[in-house]
């Protein structure tokens, strides 16, 4: 493996995001909390009376 040139190549941003487990954890939990739980429970608690 040619270390010389490759060692200079910058790691792409997307690859760095994929390598960031805290980022993935936070986004995953937030999406679940907001899109499914938050929105859903808000709707359930706002059902009108007859």
């Amino acid at each position, binding site marked *: 493996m040619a270390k010389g040139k*490759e060692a200079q*190549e910058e*790691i*792409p941003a*997307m*690859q760095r995001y994929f390598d960031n487990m805290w980022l993935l954890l936070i986004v995953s939990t937030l999406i679940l909390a907001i899109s499914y739980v938050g929105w859903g429970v808000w709707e359930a608690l706002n*059902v*009108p*009376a*007859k």
Partner: protein
Amino acid sequence: MSVVPPERVWWTEKIPKEEKTWITIAIIWGIVMFIMMPLWHVVGKQNPSTESYTTTPAEFMKEADAFIAKYKVGAEKGVAVVEPPVGSDIYMVAQQWNWYPVLKLKKGATYRLHLSSLDMLHGFSLYPMSTNFMVVPNYDYVITITPTETGDYHVVCNEFCGLGHQMMVGKIIVE
């Protein structure tokens, strides 16, 4: 190899054309399925109801009992049989462990069926079409229905609701 770290920079690895074709097919399938759900609300005749209200067991029971008193035509096996006017609001009550009343409906007529429970979660499962809805205490779920065939239909409870769950069977008659 998937058991060791990959190349230092793997993001720029080109995705071969077979994989790209596969992804394209999968995305198209996903989009078709996604469109079908809302589209069916516009062109189709079988969709989950979007009409529900909050209620309480006492309130719902009162409305249901008033409905039964008004349109009762008899009884079958100890359960009131009710023949409501076409187009009206009709009620079916779920409780541990029976459904009441028995509804007598007209083929081709549309009704607004109110479903709620006096205690636990129950499952409204209409046989033989296998049409299924949740019956939730404190919610009045209004489903607009139009019977299309005459006959005797049964309502099985298919949400576990306690030790007598298997005894819950209701009836709807269409004439």
